[in-house]
């Protein structure tokens, strides 16, 4: 029995005859590594509770601070290309019209492009996120409020607003919002008025006619005095002739 006790509890110091440990360790209970979750000593549980992880708490909670905002991603080459194209459009065309675009069937889009191409107007689909920064930095700042929803640009090197309006009148899905013609921003009304204006040749002829109106009246102005005198004298002769008809017509002084 003595040897059995020694063999079982050989690691214990203070093993003296008659000494029994207060807690019978390793007699019953599990080994260190078990399949189940071995019960922890209460002191150990307390230690684990005390030494838990405490996350840092900044003085100002992050949700009270303004949002950090994502870092601007490096610019895509594709985005740069589209921006260059938009700048080119604005630079090369005299007339740029902004229209709202609602979804149309594809064949109608092709037809619209065809009709507008006949009048030398190009249709360009633009994305707001590309065109907004381009316009904000250029002189077309006031066109920014137009670029909100889906839109298209009708660009042309000539200013043929009448034909454009006629084509767009037949398409209910495309609505003209505004235009920039010859560096002048026009609203929808302005474009309609512009279309109603006579063409350049007609207006030139009108101007020439208006300018030459006064000089054409000069000769008639100068001859007005003598004409009046002639008319008065003729009237006088007629009256004398009428009164002197029963008698002798007086010898009229000729003029």
């Amino acid at each position: 029995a003595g040897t059995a006790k020694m063999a079982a509890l050989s690691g214990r110091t203070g093993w003296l005859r008659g000494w029994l440990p207060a807690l019978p360790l390793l007699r019953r209970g599990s080994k260190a590594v078990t399949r189940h979750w071995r019960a922890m000593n209460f002191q150990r549980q307390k230690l684990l509770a005390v030494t838990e992880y405490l996350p840092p708490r900044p003085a100002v909670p992050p949700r009270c601070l303004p949002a950090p905002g994502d870092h601007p991603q490096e610019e895509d080459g594709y985005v740069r290309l589209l921006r260059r194209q938009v700048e080119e459009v604005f630079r090369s065309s005299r007339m740029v019209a902004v229209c709202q675009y609602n979804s149309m069937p594809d064949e109608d889009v092709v037809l619209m492009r065809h009709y507008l191409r006949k009048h030398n107007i190009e249709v360009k689909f633009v994305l707001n996120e590309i065109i907004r920064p381009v316009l904000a930095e250029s002189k077309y700042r006031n066109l920014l409020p137009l670029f909100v929803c889906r839109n298209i640009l009708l660009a042309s090197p000539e200013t043929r607003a009448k034909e454009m309006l006629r084509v767009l009148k037949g398409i209910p899905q495309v609505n003209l919002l505004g235009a920039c013609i010859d560096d002048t921003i026009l609203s929808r009304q302005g474009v309609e008025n512009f279309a109603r204006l006579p063409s350049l040749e007609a207006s030139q002829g009108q101007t020439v006619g208006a300018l030459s109106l006064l000089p054409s009246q000069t000769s008639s102005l100068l001859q007005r005095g003598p004409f009046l005198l002639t008319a008065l004298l003729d009237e006088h002769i007629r009256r004398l002739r009428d009164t002197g008809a029963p008698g002798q017509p007086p010898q009229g002084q000729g003029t």
Partner: protein
Amino acid sequence: PAGPGGAAVPRAGLKKLVLPPDYSGIVFPEKPKLKFMDKVPAVPKVRREPRRLRDIRGPSREATDFIQGQYGILALGGGYLHWGHLEMIRLTVGRHMDPKSMFAVWRVPAPSKPVTRKSLGHRMGGGKGPIDRYVTAVRSGRLVVELGGRCHFGEVQPFLAQVAQKLPFPAVPVSRESLREMRREEEEKRLNNQNPWTFERVVTSNMLGMRKYLSPYDLRLHGRYWGKFFLKHRV
């Protein structure tokens, strides 16, 4: 962008074209699929070995980092893998992966530790039981299998998660980046812990005589391991 009336108009915006991933530095082994593991080693052991459960306890020292592949299964607890588990892994991974574009590599040796079992229904005593099977010991923090090739993590994660769920210890599919991220987060937690009292500090300086209630292994394990379990939430 607000439309008329203040309501925001949802827009798709410009498509952000992403470059395809670069798989240039990947070297395929001769056999892409997992090798077959024997149930019993070539020279079966005659002498029955003691249980030695300390090969499950604590963090792993080997196979903690990636060697060839990009994705793998990380063990988050200790346990024994026997032939059935290894077959399950081999077959599931082989079924789901494409041998032409992916390869898989074992990070765990063939079972070599004999485990005994007494026959059912007998009382205690009568000596040690005969060898029942062979197992491999896996500690927490060890990689079990590694996967690589021309694939991204999203393709590989579903079946790795399926395999990880069936293992006898908690496991999680990882990639090189996610493992690095995990280690970095752990380190960050350790550094920005606001609690002045840490398990490590209490144990090394034996504050309040705590070592009476703790094991000498806790000096090394710092309270993050309990038996075969890995306590992930501990700092």
